[in-house]
């Protein structure tokens, strides 16, 4: 991790330092360094947790039957053996959660409202990715085009459709409710979420008469090709694609929010709508753009999620959506940096539980979703401002 600051200081000392280099440092190297730092923090804390749990539970706990592992299994050895894969899994899904979480956190930052429908926007992204892939296959293009072009087409289409969908949702279901008591838009958002689920379901029923939408990834050998990272640790190209695209999007969003005029205006709106509008900022436009950007990111995350799990249905949105919301809350809702940290932490936690739970006969994978809800509840109860959030007192 020390490499990044060193590089930075080296760059700053360099005589070649000019505007472009500074720009590159500010909006490219620094955010990437930060993301990697978060990945390392999340990874090392989960590794420590996993090792500690493995160490503590390898001895037989006669007192607590639920925590007992079958005698022939040495839990600590298993943990050590699985750790690299666990970390890789955690980072992959963590980046997907981070990208979804951005949508929640941006909208919350601007409107102070939980966009419950964001999970369905995410689901729509996965469905759009499926449609693009199927259409390419039907046009005999899927195996002809370079895989990277396929990915770009899928993500691009998903971003367009989902960005537009998020804007439509905002216009139809949220905008008329601005200024209403806080629960009113939340209930409307729950309604949108349910509506979109079945809307997409009905659409695909009419379109193809299907419910399950398996990605035809096996038609592109590139996706499944394995690369060896180290001895005993290999991964697929898909995993790398997910990680790299997520990082590109995170860096892009960072640039958008911090360096562009619109991004600054959005930040101003999230600080104080009235003042921002007095300064000549078109608040409604900024809110629309926020939804558009959040929706586009959600859609892209949907494609990545679809590539990872390869089976998509109209009902896949709820659980990842809730986990991404948990990630946003964990990092500090309204805080973009926090969403990335929260997403990575949550992804790691999920990988940790999925890896460990099967060893306990009394538990099993059925419980793997409980952790996300538990984290959500614990954070909201004990630190509602999240890891990176600030405390706000109500004025009496």
């Amino acid at each position, binding site marked *: 991790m020390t490499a990044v600051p060193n590089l930075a200081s080296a760059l700053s000392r360099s005589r070649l330092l000019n505007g472009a280099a500074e720009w590159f440092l500010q909006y490219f190297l620094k*955010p990437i360094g930060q993301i990697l730092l978060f990945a390392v923090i999340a990874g090392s804390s989960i590794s420590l947790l996993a090792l500690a749990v493995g160490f503590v539970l390898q001895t037989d706990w006669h007192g607590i039957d639920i925590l007992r592992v079958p005698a022939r299994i040495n839990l600590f050895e298993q943990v050590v053996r699985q750790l690299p894969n666990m970390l890789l899994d955690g980072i992959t899904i963590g980046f997907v959660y981070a990208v979804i979480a951005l949508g929640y956190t941006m909208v919350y930052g601007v409107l102070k409202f939980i966009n419950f429908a964001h999970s369905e926007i995410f689901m729509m992204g996965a469905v759009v990715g499926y449609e693009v892939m199927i259409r390419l296959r039907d046009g005999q293009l899927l195996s002809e085009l370079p895989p990277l072009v396929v990915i770009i087409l899928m993500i691009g289409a998903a971003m367009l459709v989902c960005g537009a969908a998020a804007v439509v949702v905002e216009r139809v279901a949220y905008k008329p409710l601005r200024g209403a008591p806080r629960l009113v838009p939340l*209930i409307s958002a729950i309604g949108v*979420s349910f509506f979109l689920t079945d809307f997409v379901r009905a659409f695909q029923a009419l379109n193809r008469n299907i419910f399950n939408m398996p990605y035809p990834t096996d038609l592109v050998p590139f996706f499944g090709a394995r690369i060896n990272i180290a001895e005993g640790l290999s991964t697929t190209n898909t995993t790398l694609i997910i990680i790299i695209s997520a990082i590109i999007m995170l860096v892009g969003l960072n640039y958008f929010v911090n360096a562009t005029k619109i991004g600054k205006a959005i930040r101003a709106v999230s600080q104080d709508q009235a003042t921002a509008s007095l300064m000549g900022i078109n608040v409604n436009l900024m809110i629309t753009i926020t939804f558009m950007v959040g929706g586009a990111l959600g859609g892209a995350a949907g494609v990545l999620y679809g590539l990872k799990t390869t089976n998509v249905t109209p009902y896949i949105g709820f659980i990842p959506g809730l986990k991404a919301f948990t990630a946003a809350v964990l990092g500090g809702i309204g805080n*973009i940096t926090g969403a990335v940290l929260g997403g990575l932490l949550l992804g790691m936690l999920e990988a940790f539980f999925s890896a460990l739970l099967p060893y306990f006969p009394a538990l099993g994978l059925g419980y793997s979703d409980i952790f996300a809800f538990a984290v*959500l509840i614990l954070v909201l109860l004990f630190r509602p401002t999240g890891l990176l959030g600030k405390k706000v007192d109500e004025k009496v």
Partner: protein
Amino acid sequence: MATQSLLQERASRLNWREALPTIFAILYVLIVFSLLRSLNRADLWFPTYSSILFPLFVFSPFIIFALKIPFALRAVLIAIIGLVLMPILGMQDSFYLELITQIAIFAAMAIGLNVVVGFAGLLDLGYVAFFAVGAYLWGIFTSNANTIVRISGAQAAPELFWLFLFLGVIAAAITGILLGLPVLRLRGDYLAIVTLGFGEIIRILVSNLSNISSNRRNPINITNGAQGLPGILSPPLPDFMFQAVESLTNSLGLPVNNVRAFTYQLFYYGLVLIVCALSALIAARLDNSPIGRAWTAIREDEVAAQAMGVPKVKMKLLAFALGASFAGAMGVIFAARNTFVSPESFSFIQSIFILAVVIVGGMGSIRGAIFGAAIVTLLNLQVLKNFSLQINALRNIDWVVPIIDFPIRNWPQQLEPARYERLVFGLLLIVMMIFRPSGLLPAKRRQLELQGERAERISEKELTADVAEIRPEDLLSAPAAIGEAKEAKAANAADIAEDLPADQPPTPGEGLPDEPKEKP
């Protein structure tokens, strides 16, 4: 004396013109009822007819209730509909009885949720968990699944149903308090999300607690997991009830195939009606008491309520416990009536279903909860289902839609209306929030009887004039007022600025805070 003469005067004025709506309402009920009676299940269009006529019939008590006639008369008319006409319809087609029982179950739960959401303003998205507590309490103790209870021989006798109904109330209330305790500090959307999390955790637990032992050969099964609990028992009914029902159906010329099953249906129908009526009575009385006022005060302004001496913790926990207890009672009844429960009956969508009932009816409104239950349940269990049935029936005869020439066999198999309940609830929630956030039958503020006269309403104009007027001398003497005035002006200006056309490019450079909040 004066009131007596007043009554006499009113009675004499009750002429035919005033009786007209009543007559129409009674005619309406009779017509709908006889049309329903004349329906034939074998008819090709039966699903469509029945899903139009039965809702019309279900709405008839509400129409009667809205009449401006003495309460006793309305009560008698509604009782005739509920206790005479409805059972007769049930003899003809027991599905009607099933539907109305479901409506009453959801109405009681909606009333319970109303206590939490409507009265106390605590949005609970995991309400169905309390329903699950009641249902699983009775289910675990009487199911024929191989649960720990059955293996250890601790099963409950069916006679204990009434005890368990009571225990279900208690257990749900305790769960309500246990879930309520940690979330006391949370408000609004965070509370909603946490309750959602709790509800999901309970569902996950219920679907996984089929083995809590490390020994795979000797599993400790509590809930029978995702398969659910089959063979749940009903309470025994005395023999004379079966005989009475049999002779009654025979004498009416409507013999039913299975007297036993039908008697149970009638029994559950009566039971849920009683529980529903009790829930409504309890909720209404609580609302109109110091407790209800304290709940509303907490909903409106927690800080002020506490400062006025309202014990926040106690009142919130009371709301959670009471709201949960209604669902607990209904859970026990639901398990016994259904003879089968599984984790699927307690998923998030069920919580949203009950929330939709409350929203459609009107938050805080008890009549609304019952009305909303009728609408939402009928939409879900009758209209959507019958739509599917109708399509299947038409598909079987290879029917073609006239005019547009659409052969119904081309209707996609995946587009089965019965499965699209989310679409309906979702639309209902959105439409209600945008156009009628207070519901179809909104809660009314109680008007208390005073000796004095009721003052007329202040017009909107007068009101704004009064607030906006800040005199210069006040500004001089009260620095605080300057702040207020400035704020008001700023808010005004902001409103105006927001209304400006969007063609102005944003000029963010000037108005930005120096320290950006987010720096990824």
